[in-house]
């Protein structure tokens, strides 16, 4: 069957082709289409019956002449050849090399859809990764094997933050971390892609990076393959070759939009804002590929980047992402406008795995309480700031004025830091105590009395 070319395309519309009279085609099987110009496109069988087979074409169906289209059914799912030689290479959105170098040769070809990890096989992520960024390490710590997205918006420095994390991430007490990067871009601009490439080059890790690029002007449907190909490479590097893999994917919004486009063509029932009801499951298939596995040394830590349409965190894409990932780092326009870098809005940010990877034996014994206190004090301070905006700062009590000063200092000194500034967790925690010391000790009830005595600069 896979050597027979069928010329029975009955209809085509926006990326979907219906083939007539091809009996016995396997669901999910890969398809090769040769058009009248001899150009080869690839696709996937998404519905199969003896009288009609529905094929999704990744390069789209533009300029497809039905009478002069030859189709082969390859009888296998979409696969990616994997090998150590992927490191340092650049692939296109469907996993073919696009750096002008020869293809990766390997007998080991893997279904890019992967297979779900058995929950009984997972090992819980517990190792603290120091990113050198106070707002993350101190209050939303990342652990090895976690999926922690960056929620951002147009014009915000999410790429710079992601690149800084990639440059600075290390395990505590470990020298040169044995880690590699898988970078996947879908719908990203050439400038974004170049920014990352240069940043990897500068930090001298380019030969430890695998890149998968589907840029803004490349086929939309191909974006459905790009993260899958990238994660297949990541799984191989992590669980076959024992690497600690950091996966950066950008922009998940472009991915979800591609999914919506195909769903509309298929006639799937929409749920919210035209996105199909299965957007959640589809995103989960990607995000859940992060993690650790018992008895395996490697790990996949994932940092997806997504831009929130109209900065709206309740939009289906950030919303469903937040429901799947283990927290989120939210970048805010207000802080950014005030010149704060990285503009991490800490209150809506969260790391769910933080509680199991910090504190005694991991970072420092006071870390959990300090983080909790910073959240509480800053939340309180923002209330006061809101009040001051209404009644005027002059009307505030002394205590409230101190609280305001804390909020300002917290944003200027704790959140704000240099793009090359790599703070150790001890520096971050000491800085936190400097700031908490601006507040009266009796107002700090999230930290213990012993911790107050030990660290609070104004405590008796």
């Amino acid at each position, binding site marked *: 069957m896979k050597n027979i070319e069928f010329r029975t395309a009955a209809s085509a519309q926006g990326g979907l082709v219906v083939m007539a009279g091809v009996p016995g085609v396997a669901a999910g099987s890969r398809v090769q289409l040769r058009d009248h110009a001899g150009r080869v496109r690839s696709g996937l069988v998404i519905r*199969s019956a003896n009288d009609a087979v529905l094929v999704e074409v990744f390069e789209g169906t533009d300029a497809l002449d039905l009478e002069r289209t030859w189709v082969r059914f390859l009888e296998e799912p979409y696969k990616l050849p994997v090998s150590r030689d992927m490191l340092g290479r650049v692939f296109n959105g469907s996993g073919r090399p696009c750096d002008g170098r020869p293809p990766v040769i390997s007998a080991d070809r893997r279904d890019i859809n992967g297979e*779900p*990890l058995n*929950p009984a096989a997972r090992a819980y992520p517990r190792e603290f990764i120091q990113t050198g960024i106070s707002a993350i390490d101190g209050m939303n710590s990342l652990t090895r094997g976690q999926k922690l997205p960056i929620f951002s918006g147009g014009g915000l420095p999410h790429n710079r933050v992601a690149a800084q994390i990639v440059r600075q991430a290390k395990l505590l007490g470990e020298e040169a971390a044995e880690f590699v990067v898988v970078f996947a871009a879908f719908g990203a601009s050439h400038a974004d892609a170049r920014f990352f490439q240069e940043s990897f080059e500068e930090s001298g890790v380019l030969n430890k990076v695998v890149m998968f690029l589907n840029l803004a002007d490349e086929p939309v449907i191909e974006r459905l393959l790009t993260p899958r190909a990238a994660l297949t490479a990541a799984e191989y590097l992590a669980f076959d070759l024992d690497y600690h893999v950091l996966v950066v994917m950008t922009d998940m919004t472009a991915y979800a939009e591609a999914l919506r486009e195909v769903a509309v063509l298929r006639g799937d029932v929409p749920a919210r804002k035209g996105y199909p009801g299965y957007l959640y*499951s589809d995103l989960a298939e990607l995000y859940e590929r992060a993690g650790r596995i018992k008895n395996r040394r490697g790990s996949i830590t994932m940092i997806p980047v997504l831009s929130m349409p109209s900065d709206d965190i*309740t939009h289906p894409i950030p919303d469903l992402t937040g429901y799947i990932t283990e927290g989120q780092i939210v970048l805010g326009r207000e802080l950014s406008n005030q010149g704060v870098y990285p503009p991490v809005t800490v209150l809506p940010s969260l790391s769910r795995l933080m509680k199991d990877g910090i504190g005694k034996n991991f970072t420092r014994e006071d870390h*959990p309480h300090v983080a909790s206190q910073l959240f509480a004090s800053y939340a309180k301070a923002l209330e006061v700031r809101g*009040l001051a905006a209404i009644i005027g700062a002059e009307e505030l009590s002394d205590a409230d004025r101190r609280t305001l000063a804390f909020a300002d200092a917290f944003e200027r000194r704790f959140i704000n830091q240099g793009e090359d500034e790599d703070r150790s967790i001890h520096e971050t925690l000491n800085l936190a105590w400097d700031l908490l010391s601006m507040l009266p000790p009796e107002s700090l009830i999230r930290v213990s009395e012993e911790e107050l005595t030990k660290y609070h600069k104004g405590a008796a």
Partner: protein
Amino acid sequence: MGKILEINGPLVKLDLPQTVLGEQVRVGRLGLVGEVISRDGNTALAQLYEDTAGLCPGEEAEGLGWPLSVELGPGLLGGIFDGVQRPLQAMWEQSGDRIARGVAVASLPRDRRWHFAPDPRCLAGMPLVGGEVLGTVQETESIQHRILVPPRVQGELLELAPEGEHTVEDVIGRVRLADGRIEKLHLFHRWPVRTPRPFRQRDHAVAPLITGQRILDTFYPLLKGGKAAIPGPFGAGKTMLQHQVARWCNAQIVIYVGCGERGNELTDVLESMPTLTDPHTGRPLMERTLLVANTSNMPVVAREASIYVGITLAEYFRDQGYDVVMVADSTSRWAEALREVAGRLGQMPVEEGYPAYLGSRLAAFYERAGRVETLAGDHGSVTLIGAVSPPGGDFSEPVTSHTKEIIQTFWALSKELADARHYPAVDWLESFSGYVSSAAKWWADNIDPGWEASRAAALDLLAASEELQRIVNLVGVEALSSEQRWTLEAASLIKEGLLQQAATDEVDSFASPEKQFALLTALLDIYRQGMKLVKLGAPARRLIQMPLLAQARRWKSQHSSDDLEALKAKIAAIPAAFEPLLLEYAPAAPSSAMEEIRP
């Protein structure tokens, strides 16, 4: 034998005459399993529990002759099963880290031998009815597994095995049915998951489920046999709260269903439960716990089934006379699975793509909770706690709004509280419980007759402070009277010293009813004593500066539930802390007068 006509995502159209709705089918070379969901003449539509990639039209399909069923018998506790009750631990050992397709592994271990002790009352020749207890197997140190006659079996007991070791498949007895056929009895039986297990009658729920969480037990109680929902946006703490309930509640059996959620959360339960001890029995918590896991990356049809697998397991332990709690995280993912299949069937969507029967399916599911008199005459209960994940945190969406009408206890989580790291982020104004008066009786009998009044006083205080906060937000705190400022301060004391309860705080993660009540009355006492002083003319500012307020906020974390004497000593010293101010503002009244002016 039938064959495949069409494959469309998880749905497969089959040429399969004579199948019945709900029948299990096995299709294709891979032997994928699914169930028939509609029929039209000779064609049937089946939804498959596994990914359909690779199936071809023309491949074989066969009906298996039974509906989706679970195996009920020893070997369940401490285990983790997928959405169609395949044992994930055993599958991991057999087929590796990834869940391969078409793997058939028996739910209960076949080679393990259990020590069966027949019930001495069961004698050959006696009549037996379904649900009766044949004997017991000590499954874990803390749980005795009662071996039940399958509910639909009725007849004369011909023989019953003597005490000894058996595998689940060994024949341990025989019954002559009314029609003369002989039915063999085993340590386990099967039950179709979409059919509620029968019982004699429903009982009133009477005792609260103690979870050790103050905002739940003291403010919005749930009864054993009750139904509760935990709605909240992502990250608000639904899972943590369910973990807390699974850990600390005073049920005998806990069924944790991870429905379309994260793999790591199940790993967390699997890793932490064996190391924690049940505060009520002192045994490792894993001995009473069972997990059903269909994580978000596992096939969506099995996700729909997982909820029913969980509730059937819960009913089975209820039928043994146990109090069972089932937590389902998240019922929204189950509803979405329903929506996905409905969409592919071309059924008319009504709201946000959900089919018209969403509400009735939800109601029928929650209806399987309850306290009952079992067929054997015992009492058992299933308490159901479902997390709800509303898109965008909007509680008016279909799943939340339907659920709200069905359940009696509503633990609403708030994004604002979670953002300020006030945990558990249960909103004290949005939440409700229809079980307060029943719970009050239990608290009065077991803890203190003043519980209901104290609870109401604290809620009034919180509501009053909400009003005042609105004023403050408009004109600032200076506009408030001293009384009002003290009310605000006392409400904040209640929030921080009582409602906030970090799951991660080793001392305070679980609070016994005694500790809950002691803290509640202590903080109210501070409020009242302060209010008397304000009424005597003391400015709120002086009161707010009292070190007692900062100290009282720490009491919860300083004294565990086993160490209440020290806490009570501190509480007894509350009047002394007010003494200096009292002398100042009511110089005429000696300190003992303080007692008299207390309400």
